[in-house]
């Protein structure tokens, strides 16, 4: 190599400004939209798609980012949360990514958002028609830890062969007296496919049922997209004598006093001091703005 050309530099220096709206090219978006349409048509079914390599690492939301990029339009308002909060580093990073590559408006308000990308939580605020909730999914296959082989699990889904999952839940009950799955708790969608809700705490499972918003799930590394269309039945797996239950906190949020939300435990000192506060920061702030107060506020 004698002299370096400047071709590569020019290409890279143009950076985000030189990329298409929402980063992905239009052919890729079309491919993803086709997968989404199929996913919506077969609720809970994992549709393989040609996941692209994104400029953020696998496992950090590449599936969610691709789904969001494929559904975003210029008029959309985007909210991104991680662990329920708009302020966690990865949520900030993904929000900045879309602000930079699409120039669309962003918000932290659940009610004001048209597209919400999330990792590990469903907002407390009830979603409404026309909204899209995009989940980042690490392992889309609910049967993966019971059967590591894709060829096997696909067959099990095709035959609705979900006995293994029920045996696993039953073994929990036999050993602990109750089901010991606290997050990524499996659900059955529209009476057919057993689906992984992504690692949301099971506290959030009931919010998926009959939800007015469209729920889309993107797994980039595992190359799967699945969906729950609006107003679809989503049942958490259970037994007649061991019905599904959600986590309960024995105290309200220390900031806004809410008694019906999922709480983060915050260690406040090294003497065992701790308080519990809403994991959904937007919901908590809204309540405080409306005059609600907890014991630490």
């Amino acid at each position: 190599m004698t002299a370096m050309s400047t071709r590569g530099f020019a290409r890279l220096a143009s950076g985000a400004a030189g990329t298409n709206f929402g980063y992905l090219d239009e052919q890729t978006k079309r491919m993803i939209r086709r997968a989404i349409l199929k996913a919506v048509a077969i609720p809970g079914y994992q549709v393989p798609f040609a996941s692209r390599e994104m400029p953020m690492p696998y496992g950090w939301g590449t599936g969610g980012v691709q789904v969001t990029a494929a559904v975003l339009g210029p008029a959309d308002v985007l909210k991104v949360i991680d662990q329920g909060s708009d302020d966690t580093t990865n949520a900030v990073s993904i929000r900045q990514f879309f602000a930079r590559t699409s120039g669309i408006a962003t918000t932290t308000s659940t009610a004001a958002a048209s597209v919400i990308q999330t990792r590990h939580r469903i907002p407390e605020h009830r979603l409404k028609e026309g909204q899209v909730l995009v989940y980042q999914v690490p392992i889309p296959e609910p049967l993966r830890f019971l059967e590591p082989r894709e060829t096997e699990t696909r067959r099990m889904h095709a035959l609705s062969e979900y006995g293994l999952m029920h045996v696993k839940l039953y073994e929990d009950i036999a050993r602990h007296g109750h089901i010991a799955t606290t997050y990524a708790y499996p659900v059955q969608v529209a009476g057919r496919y057993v689906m992984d809700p992504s690692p949301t705490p099971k506290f959030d499972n009931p919010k998926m049922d009959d939800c007015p918003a469209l729920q889309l799930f993107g797994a980039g590394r595992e190359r799967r997209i699945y969906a729950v269309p609006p107003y679809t039945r989503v049942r958490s797996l259970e037994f007649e004598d061991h019905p599904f239950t959600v986590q309960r906190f024995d105290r309200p949020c220390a900031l806004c006093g809410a008694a019906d939300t999922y709480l983060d435990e915050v260690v406040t000192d090294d003497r065992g001091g701790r308080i519990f506060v809403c994991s959904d920061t937007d919901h908590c702030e809204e309540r405080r703005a409306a005059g609600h107060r907890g014991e630490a506020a």
Partner: protein
Amino acid sequence: MYVAVKGGEAAIANAHRLLAHVRRGDPAVPELGLEQIAEQLALAVDRVMTEGSLYDRELAALALKQARGDLVEAVFLLRACRTTLPRFGHSAPLDTGRMAVRRRISATYKDLPGGQVLGPTFDYTHRLLDFTLAAGLPPPPPAEAPAEPDAPMPRVTDLLADESLIEPSPPEQPGAPVGDLTREPVSYPTGRDTRLQALARGDEGFVLALGYSTQRGYGRTHPFVGEIRAGAVMLEFVPEELGFPVPLGRIALTECQMVTQFKGSGERPPQFTRGYGLAFGGCERKAMAMALVDRSLRARELGEEATAPAQDEEFVLAHCDSLQATGFVEHLKLPHHVDFQAELELVRRLRAEHAARQAATPPMLQEAAE
């Protein structure tokens, strides 16, 4: 009053500024130029191009510089660039028989048409640190031989093929679709084209360890290096509107043909089978390991019992990509406190129930139980 933690935005921006500062290092030391990286760290560049699936020395050198020499991070940068590039189609099949050979060795023949050409190799060097290099002394000029431009250098596998001792190359299938796992999701079982692509992109360390495992009995194939050849090959492309091949330029490649034993089956006579490895530049270790694993992954096709990890297509293909692996391992750094909270609540409850059971059991029975 408690205030929830904020400020992720400023923290990220500051972390990136600090990274840029640390990457540059001591400003009194001259900054590395991309030419220096491409010329003097050529094998790192080759590896980044191979696993990055993008033949561009300049961009690979930039990726290495930006990644502070972290090869996996550099592969990541190159892949993220590649993903934004349009794909026009696929090239005409490479003819490595017409390679401008810089290195060519065979372990199965003492001598052969075209001869053994060592080329620039670490093989047979004594691995002693060279302090003249630290002092920056210029190396002596290379030895020269008279050029023999027309000397034929047939592939060793073609020599054996004359006797049908070795399985022939699969017949050419003009017009048949070529698998591309960057454009189509893999579904198992998949074709050899896609497997070879996955192995070529796969992490060198992982593919190396898998190849090694086959030598140690986990899916043994009794391999011989039929031939390793490295050099430059012309890349040709057939534009639809022209209908004839147009040369795009030369690329540097290393090819490995591994020859392995096969006792034969009901349908096939005893014959040597082959494993194939191909990598950009001088990634010889990678090409060899890839050839071993390619052969092992043909177990099903050859009617062999698949018992070892290297024979398990789904296991190998699902785990060989360094970006997928590093992304998912490193995502554990991301906050998980919502799920951890759910587990905390469960463990507290289990402990409370355990304590209640203990309290309800008379002490004598407790001892008896132990």
